[in-house]
């Protein structure tokens, strides 16, 4: 029989420490929707998504009510549009983004991911059209998320795309400048992208996935912070052990939610993503976990080591709690979405360079970073190249979600609202990388790609 302490512990995690299931994401293959006429293609994808996703929101709400665990987001990911739209006779995929947006609104999900292309080794015709359509697509839609994979350990880095994405990010910022460049918050550039990630903006339904699949992303930085308060002053073995136990408990609930959603919708269960995803809410911060380990402010020397412990222990604890683990799985460090990170930037302890170091050991990369509006496309490409190199060499996922906010400079701040939060503008190194980025071509795959 359960004890009263166990029951109260679970409810305290939910009520006081912001424990929640961050997302139930339904992945849908659009491979059977292709058509040479873009109007028919858009109609096909709209019908397929709205049919497959009809009960998603309702199912999520039912599970939330029955178990008393908040499920914050219900989302949809689809096959990368560059692949499935490629046979359309058209020079723009903006209408496809609009069809995705309309389907998301009909079904009631807050984001739909998969306006994506995988170009780590080179472009096809569809990849080029998709990438060129991104700025307008994100400006004209509300819920569509876009991602580009431009590097991998196996293929190296597509530096032509690195150059192009700097320009695309700038153009996206320009077209959404009336909303503080919000379009860039829905656009992420990856190296080694996972094809089963349920979190936005990078979610899409990989080509090796089943027809439909349910994946769940858990969260709960506040719960980890609370647990670490109990081991203040103890050594790092105690810290790691505490994080592992907490991650296990969090992930078990994610597994339950995933199994129930899978059963009720009759859709196979894919993976649990064991991520600590912060929100701007008080008590829901990854930075505060690092500070709880003994750092005066996130960004202080020791921050990378603290994040490494956290990221590794979350995986070790979560892995045992779920039958299938995947996605990004680790600790996210999105600046504008984390109250502790925002405060650390404001007090000057957290810089872009320190964040880059942290991305060597976190689960993703440079995330939700607002930079001055006059940051050049080449500089943004340089930042992307650095992140891609970290991912390629270290055989991990890295990403860049950066927002050059038109008209804003260091000292200003920007408000995205909701889960996307707000951020002070972060200074960027102003020395130029134009000639480096202008070279283009491919950075060869590293020696560790030759594993066969």
């Amino acid at each position, binding site marked *: *029989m*359960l004890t*009263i302490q*166990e*029951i*109260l*512990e*679970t*409810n305290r995690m939910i009520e006081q420490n912001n424990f929640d299931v961050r997302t139930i994401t339904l992945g849908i293959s659009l491979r059977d929707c292709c058509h040479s006429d873009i109007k028919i293609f858009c109609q096909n994808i709209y019908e397929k998504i709205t049919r497959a996703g009809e009960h998603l929101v309702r199912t999520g709400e*039912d599970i939330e*009510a*029955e*178990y*008393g*665990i908040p499920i914050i987001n219900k989302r949809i990911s689809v096959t990368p549009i560059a692949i499935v739209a490629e046979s359309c006779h058209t020079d723009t995929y903006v209408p496809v983004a609009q069809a995705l947006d309309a389907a998301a609104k009909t079904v009631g999900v807050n984001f739909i991911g998969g306006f994506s292309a995988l170009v780590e080794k080179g472009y096809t015709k569809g990849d080029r059209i998709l990438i060129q359509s991104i700025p307008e697509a994100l400006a004209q839609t509300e819920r569509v998320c876009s991602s580009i994979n431009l590097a991998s350990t196996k293929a190296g880095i597509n530096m032509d795309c690195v150059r192009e994405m700097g320009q695309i990010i700038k153009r996206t910022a320009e077209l959404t400048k009336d909303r503080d460049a919000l379009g860039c918050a829905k656009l992420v550039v990856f190296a080694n992208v996972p094809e089963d990630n349920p979190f936005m903006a990078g979610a899409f339904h990989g080509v090796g996935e089943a027809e439909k699949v349910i994946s769940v992303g858990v969260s709960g930085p506040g719960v980890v912070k609370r647990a670490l308060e109990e081991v203040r002053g103890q050594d790092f073995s105690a810290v790691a052990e505490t994080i592992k136990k907490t991650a296990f*408990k969090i992930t*078990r*609930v994610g*597994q*339950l939610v995933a199994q129930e959603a899978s059963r009720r919708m009759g859709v196979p269960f894919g993976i649990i993503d064991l991520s600590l995803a912060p929100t701007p809410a008080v008590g829901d911060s990854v930075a505060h976990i690092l500070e709880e380990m003994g750092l005066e402010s996130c960004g202080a020397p020791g921050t990378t080591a603290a994040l490494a412990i956290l990221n590794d222990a979350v995986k070790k604890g979560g892995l045992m709690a779920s039958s299938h683990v995947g996605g990004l799985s680790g600790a996210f460090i999105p600046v504008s979405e984390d109250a502790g990170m925002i405060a650390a930037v404001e007090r000057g302890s957290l810089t872009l360079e320190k964040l880059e170091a942290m991305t060597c050991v976190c689960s993703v990369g440079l995330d939700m970073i607002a930079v001055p509006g006059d940051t050049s496309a080449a500089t943004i490409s340089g930042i992307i190249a650095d992140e891609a190199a970290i991912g390629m060499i270290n055989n991990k996922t890295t990403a860049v979600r950066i927002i050059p906010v038109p008209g804003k400079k260091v000292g200003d701040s920007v408000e995205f609202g909701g889960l996307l939060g707000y951020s002070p503008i972060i200074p960027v190194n102003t020395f130029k990388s134009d000639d480096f980025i202008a070279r283009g071509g491919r950075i060869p795959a590293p020696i560790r790609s030759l594993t066969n």
Partner: protein
Amino acid sequence: MKAVITIVGQDRVGIVAMVSEILAVNSVNILNINQNILDGFFNMVMIVDMTSSKVSLKDLQQVLKGKGQELGLDIKVQHEDIFQIMHRI
């Protein structure tokens, strides 16, 4: 199916009686009750069996939540599995 009922609020006469009556009327069987008063606050956790229940979990949640609000109590009803899966391997 088993459910866990947690009740928190200002202590007063008749809380247990009120909840028990609602459960009895709906054929929900009480398996375990754990109750105490902390700093004047009433805390109770009940584990109940809903196998023969006349109402669904959602309906029971509505009834108890509504009654709780009348009396200034926070009453939650949750499927037992969330606790089992977190605390038992």
